[in-house]
């Protein structure tokens, strides 16, 4: 097969960090090429250079035998390179056709475009209705819009950035079928992911990045997942230690919890119920957009419900706000690090005060802040959880994702709660920090706390959870023990393919 894109010695540095260093590899026409690496390895930066969003400091690229230096995404698109981002560039209040039109250079008139969308989407097994508002679509369907937007421009190289983080196992199958079809037709695919099993199943070639450099190129099908993981991280990984535990009394009881979503396009919770004992870890799986955020808000107290819907250590708490619930022993760590769990422009010390005021006694009787105690608390968090930061007066936004997440989770854990609820605890965090966070959660459970972990990462849940449930369109499946679960079974609990039509393979 002929080489489509050749990347030679690409280098990019930012102040204080080398994102990519002398990266070289080649993609052949029609090949499904994986770009593998953990968070922070430099995959996104590399791909942004290929797509024209970022200019390399050194090195060159050759596409179709011609020098390739896109100054902006438009140039990349014109050259036949298309990209589906991890975070969609979609407009919720506009419909599918309008969204597609916005992603195109010179779109045809609406009616023609709508017809084309129907054609192409069905042909590749991802049917779409052009008139629907994007805000009403599920995450998997939104991804389809992004893909169809790319396909309509007849790309030679399709770049996909972490595409399966928002899909159920069944939806992943559908996507893979589409990608194989494209590959057979001669479109090359650059597939970025850190999900080893998927890469082994789908990709022909894998280039592995670590700390901005290429460490290896291999055929993923010939290696085991463990070998790939070790190449990615560079060390031997050990699964977290699970201390033996005796479940204690019931710490959290949820019954008949139904709340509307505060967001205009959010998912309402419907009749959620479960019961959790001290020392147990409940893992809640689900792809984005099925009510995870709302569940955390309902448990943390930002969303109110009837008093009996949520009981913390036996006390009715549904009608209480976050601080009252902290007093009863429930703490929470929301998904959005900057902006929700922490105030980006406030210092770490102030952020420690934000959630720790109640349980750590940081505010005096008349409402005056105990500055010294606050500083001590923040310092303790930084020390105990290995948060890399110049000091506690640094603004939260200056920390890297992994370090901020360690701080946020650490802040909640050090409050010695009876119940802790975390949403996506290791999203966007490098492997070392992620392992530390998971271990910390397990240790907390070992000390007798009840842990609710909501996550899109099934591997993570299977590692730490004792009990397992899935959140699908606002409903929770009946919790069941983790032993004996299959990926297939989990996928079905997560809602299968969410009613997305599966078009028949292109003959």
């Amino acid at each position, binding site marked *: 097969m002929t080489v489509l894109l050749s990347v030679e010695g690409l280098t990019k540095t930012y102040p204080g960090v080398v994102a990519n260093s002398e990266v070289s590899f080649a993609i052949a026409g029609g090949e499904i090429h994986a770009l593998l690496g953990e968070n922070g390895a430099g995959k996104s930066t590399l791909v942004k250079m290929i797509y024209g*969003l*970022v200019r390399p400091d050194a090195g060159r690229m050759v596409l179709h035998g011609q020098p390739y230096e896109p100054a*902006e*995404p*438009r140039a990349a698109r014109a050259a036949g390179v298309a990209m589906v*981002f991890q975070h*969609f*560039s*979609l*407009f*919720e*209040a*506009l419909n599918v056709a*309008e969204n597609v*039109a*916005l*992603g195109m250079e010179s*779109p045809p008139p609406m009616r023609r475009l709508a017809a084309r969308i129907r054609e192409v989407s069905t042909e590749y097994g991802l049917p779409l209705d052009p008139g629907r508002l994007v805000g009403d679509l599920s995450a998997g369907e939104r991804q389809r819009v992004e893909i169809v937007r790319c396909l309509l421009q007849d790309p030679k190289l399709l770049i996909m950035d972490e595409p399966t983080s928002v899909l159920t196992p069944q939806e992943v199958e559908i996507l893979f079928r589409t990608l194989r079809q494209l590959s057979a037709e001669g479109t090359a695919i650059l597939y970025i992911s850190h999900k080893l099993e998927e890469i082994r199943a789908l990709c022909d070639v894998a280039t592995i990045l670590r700390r901005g450099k290429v460490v290896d190129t291999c055929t993923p099908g010939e290696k085991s997942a463990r070998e790939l993981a070790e190449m990615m991280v560079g060390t031997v990984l050990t699964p977290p230690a699970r201390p033996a535990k005796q479940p204690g009394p019931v710490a959290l009881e949820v019954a008949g919890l139904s709340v509307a979503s505060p967001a*205009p396009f959010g998912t309402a919770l419907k009749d959620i119920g479960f019961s959790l004992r001290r020392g147990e870890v409940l893992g809640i799986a689900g792809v984005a957009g099925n009510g995870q955020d709302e569940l955390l808000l309902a448990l943390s107290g930002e969303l109110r419900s009837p008093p009996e819907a949520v009981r913390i250590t036996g006390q009715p708490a549904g009608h209480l706000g976050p601080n009252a619930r902290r007093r009863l022993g429930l703490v929470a760590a929301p998904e959005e690090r900057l902006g929700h769990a922490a105030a980006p422009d406030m210092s770490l010390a102030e952020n420690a005060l934000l959630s720790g005021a109640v349980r750590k006694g940081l505010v005096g009787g008349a409402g005056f802040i105990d500055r010294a105690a606050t500083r001590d608390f923040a310092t303790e968090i930084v020390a105990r959880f290995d948060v890399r930061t110049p000091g506690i007066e640094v603004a939260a936004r200056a920390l890297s994702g992994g370090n901020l997440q360690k701080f946020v989770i650490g802040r909640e854990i050090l409050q010695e709660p009876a119940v802790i609820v975390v949403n996506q605890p290791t999203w966007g965090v490098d492997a070392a920090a992620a392992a530390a966070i998971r271990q910390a959660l397990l240790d907390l459970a070992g000390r007798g706390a009840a842990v609710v972990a909501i996550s899109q990462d099934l591997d993570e849940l299977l590692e730490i959870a004792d009990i397992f449930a899935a959140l699908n369109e606002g409903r929770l499946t009946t919790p069941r023990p983790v032993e004996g679960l299959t990926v297939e079974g989990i996928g079905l609990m997560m809602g299968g393919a969410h009613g997305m039509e599966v078009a028949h393979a292109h003959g």
Partner: protein
Amino acid sequence: MDLSAINPAVLMATVMVAATPILLAALGELVVEKAGVLNLGVEGMMILGAICGFAVAVETGSPVMGFLGGALGGAALSLIFALLTQYLLANQVATGLALTLFGLGFSALIGQGYVGIKPPEWVRLDLGAVSRSPVVGTILLRHDPMVYTGLGFVVAIWAVLKFSRVGLILRAVGENHDAAHALGYKVIRIRILAILFGGAMAGLGGAYLSLMRVPLWTEGMTAGAGWIALALVVFASWRPGRVLLGAYLFGGITVLQLNLQASGVRIPVEYLSMSPYLITILVLVVMSSGRGRAALNAPASLGRNFHATH
């Protein structure tokens, strides 16, 4: 109290005239807000447009030049707003207020030499006997060109927003400026153009006040019309057709209360003059308390500044 002196057809015609300044300003602000920017300086831009239009019209003797001058004046002021909020990322609320205060003061300054002068007249539409017919003619066919232009703008803006690529891009920018930027659209440039358009429209509205509606120059003559225009945009759920409705409603109340004052109704003048503002508040409350659809039309990025990160 003599209510018979109020002729409904004449009343309707007067309402259309009274509504035109706020209609123009509100349409302009609608475009600006659809692009995601909240410009509270409408009052300042209107009054600057009023004096610029007045001054130019008096100096050149031509109302058309006057309107152009008004539009340019409003646009110039909005340029300051655009630079401050889009390039220097200043807080939109504070900057809009500064604009209003500055506009009020500056216009009073320029207007010093124009108090008491009469502006040049403008030819009204005259289709002969048809125009003089009691109902249809009075209401529809005897206005000055700007009233018709205003109505034309309503249709034009609606069509552009709904059907054209330019309108689509504008809406996208207002909806999700990060996504628009990721797709390669020049968010800042689009917003600046929208702001300038809004300024020109507000200036036109103000010029209409000083040139046609009153027609005189007095310090502070907009008397809160700019704020009403802002409220109108919310009231109209960011839809041009509803802006027209709202403008007529407000114009209607203003005219009605003036007529009531004149006809000797037994309510003190001051209370009557409060009524337009109170009614506007009432309408705002009703509109914001409705869920769902009204919220859907508000551009999601409204009021938030765009930080380009590369």
